[in-house]
């Protein structure tokens, strides 16, 4: 059985919970090398996204992600609003028309999402951004042959990618203003991206 709209909603619910639970952590990470709003912004956005999902009840997974995308774009602001908005918008478009989504469609959608994020933000891997968690995770999913282990591998890869941002000097986003001082801090956006993959692994398969 593939991923239904209900599953997609579960995913978003779980992601919202993770963000909410780790709000302080995300704020703290963003205070160190940014402006301290990443946790608050993502929490506000995901709360509104769930509200809207509850009202609109989209019929397929693509529509779920598009609805979330639109809400994030219009309520998060900052860098994360357009980036997560673009990610979900591209994923949603890629999945359009599929009532149930299988691994190949899902990894294609993630790839589109990643491309969207990079088109929007111009970040390369190694720039110390969410791209550093996204890139290896999407790759892991593409290399998988089954959904459940694929999602788990993706979550692990996102986790590794997130940790790997710590020693980097930021070249994109607000942390880049710190130059060398951005070293030795984990990137907040890569951290929230890890929670997105973790939530996926816990909700989308099985």
């Amino acid at each position, binding site marked *: 059985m593939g991923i239904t709209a209900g599953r997609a909603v579960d995913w978003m619910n779980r992601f919202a919970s993770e963000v909410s639970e780790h709000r302080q952590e995300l704020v*703290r990470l963003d*205070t160190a090398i940014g*402006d301290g709003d990443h946790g*608050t912004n993502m929490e506000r956005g995901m709360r509104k996204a769930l509200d809207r999902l509850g009202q609109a009840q989209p019929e397929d997974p693509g529509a779920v992600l598009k609805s979330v995308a639109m809400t994030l774009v219009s*309520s*998060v*602001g*900052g860098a994360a609003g357009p980036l997560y908005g673009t990610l979900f918008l591209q994923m949603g478009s890629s999945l359009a028309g599929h009532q149930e989504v299988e691994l190949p469609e899902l990894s294609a959608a993630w790839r589109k999402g990643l491309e969207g994020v990079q088109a929007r933000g111009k970040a390369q891997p190694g720039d110390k951004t969410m791209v550093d968690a996204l890139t290896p995770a999407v790759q892991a999913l593409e290399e998988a042959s089954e959904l459940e282990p694929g999602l788990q591998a993706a979550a692990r890869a996102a986790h590794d990618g997130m940790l790997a941002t710590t020693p980097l000097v930021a070249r994109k*986003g607000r942390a880049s203003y*710190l130059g060398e001082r951005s070293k030795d801090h984990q990137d907040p956006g890569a951290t929230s991206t890890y929670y997105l993959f973790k939530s996926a692994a816990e909700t989308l398969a099985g």
Partner: protein
Amino acid sequence: MKKLINAPDAVLSDALRGVQAAHGDRLRVSFDPAYVVRSDAPVQGKVGIISGGGSGHEPMHGGFVGPGMLDGACPGEVFTSPTPDQMIEATKAVDGGAGVLHVVKNYTGDVMNFDMAAELGRGENIEVETVLTNDDVAVEDSLYTAGRRGVGVTVLIEKICGGAAEDGRSLQEVAELGRRANANGRSMGMALTPCITPASGEPSFELGDDEVEIGIGIHGEPGRFREQLGPASQVAERLMAPILDDLPFSSGDRVLAFVNGMGGTPLLELYVMYAEVARVAGERGIQLERNLIGNYITSLEMQGCSITLLKLDDELLRYWDAPVNTPALRWGA
């Protein structure tokens, strides 16, 4: 955290209620999406100008809405850029048929949100031009990074473009003027204390009892480095040197000097700083033709200041001097 607020997530809407109550005669406030426009917007035939950015920098931008400056402003959450729908609605509200200028400070979030607004807004058939401000010499300028931040010069550009728009100049001309002002402006800031956003409740960085943070921006982010606090004369030299070297400004230049408080520094100290800025400029033969001293682009309650120098030409000077009538900047009207 001690603040005069009702709740962290109500700050923006409560402050907008205050703006409406105080300036309802001259400004129109929309709460959802959040934006503020001058009450006679759109002004037919005039180029509209909007700006936007996170809250916490007041009076920028809402305090600069009015004849001779901005037609509209989009406030985001504290230190968070506003969203595309705010920008689209504000753009529509100020379009008087001559196109709309977006004044955008160069931050990843601001740039991306204004980009999305422009994309989504294409269907509206409004001609939009963007002036990106990036005057902060504390940040290295490179193709491979996010580039320099937009700070103090933004205020000056909003005033100058506002003057030109009021004078009937075209969208292209107003935008060109804004870009010229940006090219002619340089800034550098420092902090004595961090600030605390209502949402986080924690200081944005920690500083020793005799330390200052040099090269800060306006979002409570740490600067490039920290050092011992010296006398005001030394602080002024510290901030002026990279500004003067970067453009470079030279003897005989006519310059507007803007000594900006970060929000928590007494005006008394800003005047002490201005005395030193004038001294350093004088030593280089630079003439401070105009000045602006006060809290205009702030970081909540942060103590510290930034210095902006803008090289003037006759046209920039004329539009700087032109009448302006906003809550925070007013003359000739």
